């Protein structure tokens, strides 16, 4: 199967292992991710906070590229997903602010989690699991923009989404239920109001520690970086100790598929997940 792929800017930097694991897992599943030729930034929060035109035209340019290719557009980032999908709405309407990017037919923008959890993929995943994640207690974390607002994301269970839970169970892990699945981690405030972000992340880590879970699983580069990289400093400020590994769901798929590259991805984390995985016999 072949789809267009919009990686987003962080896959070239802080979320490298997300990109690497996605590529590996998709090639194992015989999915060809065709990177949009010469894609540009979707504008993220900064565009929609600044002007309606930029918020539409920046993703609009990429949607025009995808439209000319003609297949579904898959993206691994929740923020890109949200911006691209909002722009599809905007550009399909009659009073669009960026007419030059008007779409003749709406591009089907999909988040890679939804794509890999879809009916058509389940069979393939099932067949490739050689090392089920038995005994791994995981929390699923969806964050904001993957699920909200539902009129844009088309998520049927926006207060209690289940696709990632189902995938984790499918991979053999134990999915622990918690009420922070779709809480905001304050990622967009990290560089401007770090105190607010720390408090939001801290709350989440506290809740994670209260459950019996051993790791958090995300499907967004911004969420993962936010939860993984600040545990030390928040612990120091809160006089607590946090060291809970934060995975990308694609890394766990790679582990279950017994991909030889998995160790390389995991070494890029700030909170080292390797001791946990070794203890479980998964690495």
């Amino acid at each position: 199967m072949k789809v267009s792929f919009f990686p987003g800017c962080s896959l070239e930097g802080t979320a490298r292992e997300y990109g690497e694991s996605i590529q590996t897992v998709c090639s194992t599943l015989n999915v060809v991710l065709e990177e949009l030729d010469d894609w540009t930034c979707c504008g993220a929060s900064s565009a929609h906070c600044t002007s309606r035109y930029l918020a539409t035209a920046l993703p609009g340019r990429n949607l025009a590229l995808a439209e000319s290719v003609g297949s579904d557009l898959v993206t691994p980032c929740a923020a890109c997903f949200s911006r691209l999908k909002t722009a599809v709405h905007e550009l399909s309407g009659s009073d669009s602010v960026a007419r030059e990017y008007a779409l003749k037919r709406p591009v089907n923008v999909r988040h890679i989690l939804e794509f890999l959890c879809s009916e058509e993929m389940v069979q393939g995943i099932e067949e490739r699991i050689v090392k089920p994640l038995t005994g791994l207690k995981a929390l699923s974390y969806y964050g904001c923009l993957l699920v909200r607002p539902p009129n844009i994301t088309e998520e049927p269970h926006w207060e209690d989404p289940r696709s990632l839970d189902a995938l984790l169970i499918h991979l053999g892990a134990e999915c622990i239920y918690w009420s922070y699945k779709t809480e905001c981690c304050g990622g967009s405030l990290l560089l401007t109001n770090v105190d607010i972000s720390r408090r939001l992340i801290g709350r989440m880590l506290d809740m994670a520690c209260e459950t019996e879970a051993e790791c958090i699983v995300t499907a967004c580069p911004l969420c993962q970086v936010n939860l993984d990289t600040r545990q030390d400093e928040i612990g120091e400020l809160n006089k607590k100790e946090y060291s809970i590994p934060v995975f990308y769901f694609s890394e766990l798929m790679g582990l279950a598929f017994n991909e030889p590259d998995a160790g390389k991805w995991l070494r890029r984390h700030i909170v080292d997940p390797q001791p946990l995985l070794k203890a479980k016999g998964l690495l």
Partner: protein
Amino acid sequence: MNIVKGASFIKKGRVFDDVFACYQCCKCSAGCPVAFAMDLLPHQIIRHLIYHDTEKALASHTIWMCASCQTCNTRCPNEIDIAGVMDELRHMHIQSGRYPAEPATPLFHHTFLNEIQKHGRIHELSLMQRYTFKRRKLPGKGNLQDMLYDMKLGLKLFLRGKISLWPHRGRSRSEVAAIFKHEHGNKKT
């Protein structure tokens, strides 16, 4: 009275038309993750707009602190796009050229968009360098402890191969530049 002024403001944005449906149930504020840090809660922002007191909303810290998490609009029983209202207020504020209650936030957005304008994509390292440099003059920001945390983290990220040193150089930069040119043209009219 600023009712007339407020009303003319309100006509500008599409999402503003819906605020009159608000019956102040406070569901938006109850679920807002940043409410603890806001000077005006989301339902209060909406209330000020209903009273045509756009000024109060524009002067608030709230419009810059909102994390755009979309919880409020998802839950509002009257389908008011509160996060969209926050966006419109920010747009109005930026266009007005006034000094914001939270100067770091629009400065960050400005720097971020400049990076896109220049490279087509975000290059994290150069964004951080430019933003840190520009931010140094803002009052009360960037204390030593935070800078130390950031430096320590930067080193760890570097050692793990997560910092790309050079920005991407796409063919499309002229196309992106045209988008920004159009945007600046929009602003002048």
